[in-house]
């Protein structure tokens, strides 16, 4: 019995499902990190640069140490350093967090291209996936159910954050700082340290998201690795209304959109390749347009967020 051929058209949704999980993981990690940062009232547009630095650092450390997980850790640490830089600079008076974000995007990209130049050729050890498809004889199902542990960590984190924001003292402090600096001061919460800490955590997760790109899918280091995924993740947090669990669904949706181009190309439909690759951007823009309104601030938006304040 040849199961692989017998799958037929069922292979298409399976490919999109598998692709969605693969492609969505960086979106999920970056958007959860940005969710924490934005809850504190700051926005970090520099996550695009952080993502690409994380991808480069993760790949480099994995190559040098021989351990992909050390690479993930290094990517997170590099990301938190850039997050710290963003957090500290934004704490200066009159310094605009969006402008600092754009500048860190440029700096991170430049540094990653500079330091990553020797990493284009060699092959680093990759992250291993967990084969959840062991029960099936079909190689397609088996490969579709190769799920990377970072995706599972992302799901766990989304659930954890959902509860942490609601029911823990830490989550409470974060939300109050993000909604009103005056109220936080009145309650005795330290505003700037909280925001800097939230930005550092956001940077850590974005760095790990970058390591997923270079160490698992697509799984190599090159300069075109992240084309705007960090920015899409920022927009995705707005779409998710600053809710971690919605970040999960939104990431899967975007992962599916991102998997569309490669999936169709694998089936031999190549004509609109560049247009299909633009699908996540079109989707993001469409959703932003549909959910925004000039007459009210967005439901659930942290009050101190410069991005949604008119």
């Amino acid at each position: 019995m040849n199961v692989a051929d017998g799958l037929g058209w069922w292979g298409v949704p399976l490919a999109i499902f598998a692709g969605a999980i693969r492609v969505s993981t960086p979106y999920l990690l970056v958007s959860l990190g940005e969710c924490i940062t934005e809850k504190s009232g700051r926005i970090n547009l520099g996550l695009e640069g952080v993502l690409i630095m994380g991808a480069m650092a993760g790949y480099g450390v994995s190559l040098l140490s021989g351990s992909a997980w050390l690479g993930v850790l290094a990517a997170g640490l590099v990301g938190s350093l850039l997050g710290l830089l963003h957090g500290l600079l934004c704490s200066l008076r009159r310094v605009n967090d969006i402008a600092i974000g754009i500048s860190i995007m440029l700096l991170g990209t430049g540094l990653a291209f500079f330091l990553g130049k020797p990493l284009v050729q060699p092959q680093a050890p990759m992250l291993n996936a967990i084969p959840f498809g062991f029960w099936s004889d079909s190689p397609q199902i088996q490969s579709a159910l190769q799920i990377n542990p970072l995706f599972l960590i992302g799901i766990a984190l989304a659930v954890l954050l959902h509860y942490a924001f609601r029911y823990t003292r830490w989550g409470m402090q974060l939300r109050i700082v993000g909604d009103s600096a005056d109220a936080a001061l009145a309650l005795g919460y330290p505003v700037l340290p909280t925001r800097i800490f939230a930005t550092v955590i956001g940077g850590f997760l974005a760095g790990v998201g970058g390591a997923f790109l270079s160490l698992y899918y697509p799984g190599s280091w090159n300069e075109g690795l992240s084309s705007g995924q960090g920015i899409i993740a920022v927009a995705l947090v707005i779409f998710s209304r600053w809710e971690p669990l919605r970040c999960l669904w939104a990431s899967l949706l975007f992962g599916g959109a991102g998997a569309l181009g490669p999936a169709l190309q694998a089936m031999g439909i190549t004509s609109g390749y560049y247009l299909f690759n633009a699908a996540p951007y079109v989707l993001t823009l469409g959703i932003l347009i549909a959910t925004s309104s000039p007459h009210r601030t967005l439901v659930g938006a942290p009050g101190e967020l410069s991005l949604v304040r008119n």
Partner: protein
Amino acid sequence: MKLMQRFLPVAESIAIPVMALLVAMLLFAGFVMAVGQSPVEVYSLLYQGGFGSAFSLQNSLLRAAPLILTGLAVAIPAQAGMVIIGGEGALALGALAAAVAGASLNGASPHLVQTGMLAVGALCGGVWIGLSGWLRHYRGVNETISSLLLSYIGIALLNFFVEGPLKDPASLNKPSTAPIGDANMIGNLPGMDVHYGLLFGVICALITWVILKFTTIGFALRTVGGNPRAAQMAGLKVGYWIVGAAFAGGLAAGLAGAIEVAAVQGSANASVVAGYGYAGILVAFIARQNPFAVIPVAILIGGINAAGGMLQRRLDMPDASVMVLQGIIFVVIIASETLNGRLRIFKPVSPISAVIPTKP
């Protein structure tokens, strides 16, 4: 005293970016040392490669030409309070539209073809960035994010048309649109290896500067940017101003793309997406969104870009070295905003500031 009051703010707006540039150069020197190169050698090469000879100076001016326009693409909307970062996509679409216009007008007189290409390219860029302004005012969508998303979409459209429906079958190893023809190319300035695009850029910057500084248009834009509600009360149609400023910025970026096609490439292809749109953000921020200051800053950044190849050839440093330098400059310049109005030497002791304490 009156002279001092006029002079001090100008001195401050020049001195702070210059100090920030020096700090950024020191930081880059540290980075250069950390990767095992000599900062003295790197900076002298940057100078030689950017401004040291007639050849390198012309090379810098060549790269400054699109940067003046992409800098304006950020600086003009900034007057109305918008942070637009999508110049790269508007440039790509401007290039595509200009190439299509050039090919379809082929056969007409060269001047008509050139005018047509530049007009259509600029218009296309204007519509693209104008869309961001429209979305901001009428839909409440943040213009920074929407312009960047539109930028990626614009680049994807360029790639799609260049590799697909508009691909010239003769362009084998580098997919391009049909060539506009040598006769229709925009030539060089007399006696130089720099094309007329530089002149167009300088003229655009000067016109913009004059309009913003000496007419009520500039005042209205700044009112809209500073306080939309007050502007509305004063009878300004805020929406028109927002969309208009974004459209004008897009015109500049689209024109930059059209010039790249009409003066350098001769057809639209992936090479027009060379990062000029992103470097324009840096140019506008160093120039403090002043259209006049955009000209010298664009030449400076153009020079740094032009010298990148020199670092690569002589010291075997990656071509991203100049990106690192620009990134450091950008971060320090933005952070130096915090010094604005807080340095005592720039504070005149005037009757007004003695009575009304300045805000901390």
